[in-house]
């Protein structure tokens, strides 16, 4: 990764969610802090799905939780429908939060084992009794809670009469994830944040949940922030994709464009590492060497430079800013992979990544 900057943001009246210059720090004991997110900005338009992808530890979950103010980010703004959540306190924040719902990787762990499914799904209404739950079709009349529970469970393919009285441990991972999704939908959220929602599920069940999320997006007009480390999964549901590395954004833009022609060397390497069924025998080599550097000791300049085959001295000195390489596509790299053959060496002497100092 790479870069900072806000050039990629669209006018704020065209988007539902806008995150600007987000920093998230976690304390990591012995008075040390990990900077999990460093200057991330993105936005999501109404009805759009933004996929957030990157290797483990790059700050995807930290970003998601900061959007929900759980906990509040170290700095930066998170604007939902014109309201900056980072300035809200107490009751005001609680109220707004109901329109941001989240589902997690481990569905069973996020369901209270002692409660019945019907109560779990209703839970949101009990916490926000004044919440107006609008039916998808007749925008206006609040539906009685029981009907609402039935309708929402129905939309995730479950029958209230059959499962309402059962408890979470009686369900498989895929079924538990459906229950989590139903619970999240109860309050008619404006934005659904999915943090690795299918990573813990079997392939055959994963497809059920991915199709379901796509259906619900149509049915409820959901806006989604969808996080996964699996590139094919992210591609299958996203309209736009944001690639992260070590707390910063590498590139952001329309899904097809990024997958067809990655412009950031990191995206390129990620895609080259994905094993492909139809590509014949795997070709050895030519992807990244080494592991991502420790977040305690992030490289100066471009954070990807210790593993980047195109890195030069400039990459060590200057943090690349996100800039537009083609319509709607923003890349944070001094030497992006563009259509023309790149000549990083023209800029200054190319430094092979093997000789670039690597942080531990």
């Amino acid at each position, binding site marked *: 990764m790479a870069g900072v900057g806000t050039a990629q943001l669209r006018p704020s009246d065209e988007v539902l969610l806008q995150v600007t210059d987000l920093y998230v720090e976690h304390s990591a004991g012995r008075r040390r802090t990990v900077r999990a997110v460093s200057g991330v900005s993105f936005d999501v338009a109404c009805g759009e799905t933004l996929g957030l992808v990157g290797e483990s530890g790059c700050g995807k979950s930290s970003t998601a939780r900061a959007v929900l103010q759980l906990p509040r980010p170290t700095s930066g703004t998170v604007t939902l429908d014109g309201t900056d959540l980072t300035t809200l306190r107490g009751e005001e924040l609680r109220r707004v939060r109901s329109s941001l719902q989240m589902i997690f990787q481990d569905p069973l762990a996020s369901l209270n084992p002692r409660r019945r499914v019907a109560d779990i799904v209703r839970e949101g209404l009990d916490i926000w009794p004044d919440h107006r739950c609008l039916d998808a079709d007749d925008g206006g009349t609040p539906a009685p809670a029981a009907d609402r529970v039935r309708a929402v469970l129905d939309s995730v393919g479950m029958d209230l009469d059959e499962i309402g009285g059962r408890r979470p441990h009686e369900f*498989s991972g895929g079924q538990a994830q459906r229950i989590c999704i139903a619970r999240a939908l109860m309050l008619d959220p404006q934005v659904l944040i999915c943090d690795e929602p299918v990573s813990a599920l*079997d392939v*055959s069940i994963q497809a059920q949940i991915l199709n379901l999320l796509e259906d619900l997006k149509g049915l409820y007009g959901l806006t989604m922030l969808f996080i996964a480390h699996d590139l094919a999964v992210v591609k299958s549901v996203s309209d736009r994709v944001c690639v992260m590395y070590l707390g910063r954004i590498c590139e952001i833009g329309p899904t097809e464009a990024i997958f067809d022609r990655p412009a950031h060397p990191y995206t390129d390497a*990620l895609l080259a590492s*994905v094993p492909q069924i139809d590509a014949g025998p*795997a070709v*050895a080599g030519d992807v990244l060497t080494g592991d991502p550097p420790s977040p305690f000791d992030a490289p100066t300049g471009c954070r990807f430079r210790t593993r980047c085959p195109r890195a030069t001295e400039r990459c060590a000195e200057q943090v690349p800013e996100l800039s537009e390489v083609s319509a709607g596509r923003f890349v944070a790299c001094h030497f992006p992979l563009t259509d023309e053959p790149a000549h990083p060496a023209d800029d200054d002497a190319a430094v092979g990544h093997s000789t670039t100092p690597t942080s531990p």
Partner: protein
Amino acid sequence: MNDPHEIPTLVVEDLCTSFATERGPLQAVDGVSFTLRRGRTLGVVGESGSGKSATARSIMNLLPPGTSATTGRVLLDGRDVRSLSRAESRHVWGVEAAMVFQNPMTSLNPVIPVGRQIGEGLRYHRKLSRAAAGRRARELLEQVGIADPERRLAEYPHQLSGGMRQRVMIAVALACDPKLLIADEPTTALDVTVQKQILDLLDRLRQQRRMAMVLITHDLSVVAGRTDDVIVMYAGRVVEQAPTRQLFSAMRHPYTQALFESIPKVTQPSHTRLRIIQGRPPDLAALGPGCAFAPRCAHAQPRCCRETPPLSGSEGADARHACFYPAGTTVGEAALAANRAAGRTAAGLALAAGAAAGADVA
């Protein structure tokens, strides 16, 4: 290339393993057989709980004797290793046949420096001196691509990244020059870039040492590029078995086919509708009669609910499948068409009438 008269490195015949559970016996492995020759890689794919690890652990003699029972034959270089005495088998497991596990953090000892863990086997089985074992451990770390091996030798597992731990696991497994390496989901917990490094490494080491390798994974795409033959498992049984190229050009078992089609692929446009496999894998402690896939199978006919299909193939062919109405055959396509027309299968699964393959009713 391969001498057909050479004794295969591993032959598994009718391997069965059951576990004693609260709900009665659970048949985790049910009649698995295969042959693996020197220098070749066999891929084992299947979903969670299909019996992949149980198969590997049965072969490696790693199951708890009290609660599990294994039958069948395992021949390592022609020797029946299940009938060896304890003293004899001590120098087989972890020496001639070694394993790399799903989770390196739980299979490495957290309180012993990695150098000593790599050298331990060499000292015990090969009777090397401490110094010689240390030197060999250093070489092994270098071979598995760990930078600065001298320093890493003295470190503990928690000081290493996930990818490095998996490399250390591989070094431990390779220490005594095994003929057979079983890698059980060696990259499942790792990021794609590191996954590729580890799979490339295993490939290279297998070639250099002409080891036979079993690569267990739930990911069909890993198997596609990196194995010579594949077996697909469902509910403890092998449901399809074929040379890898042949499998991917003609999947016969409806489960293999459905599994393949349900995986999102980076080569598909975004928002491509995925094929769904209805329902979920069966409870192995409560398997009824008939084909275990029948409740989820779009091809299922009455016979499937009564009889268990044997694993079979045409005379002389390498490819075999356990299905009465295989995909891509006249009977199979007729069964599917009849079910579509009826709107349901013999096992009661609802299907959209006349729908294309990708659109079973959600």
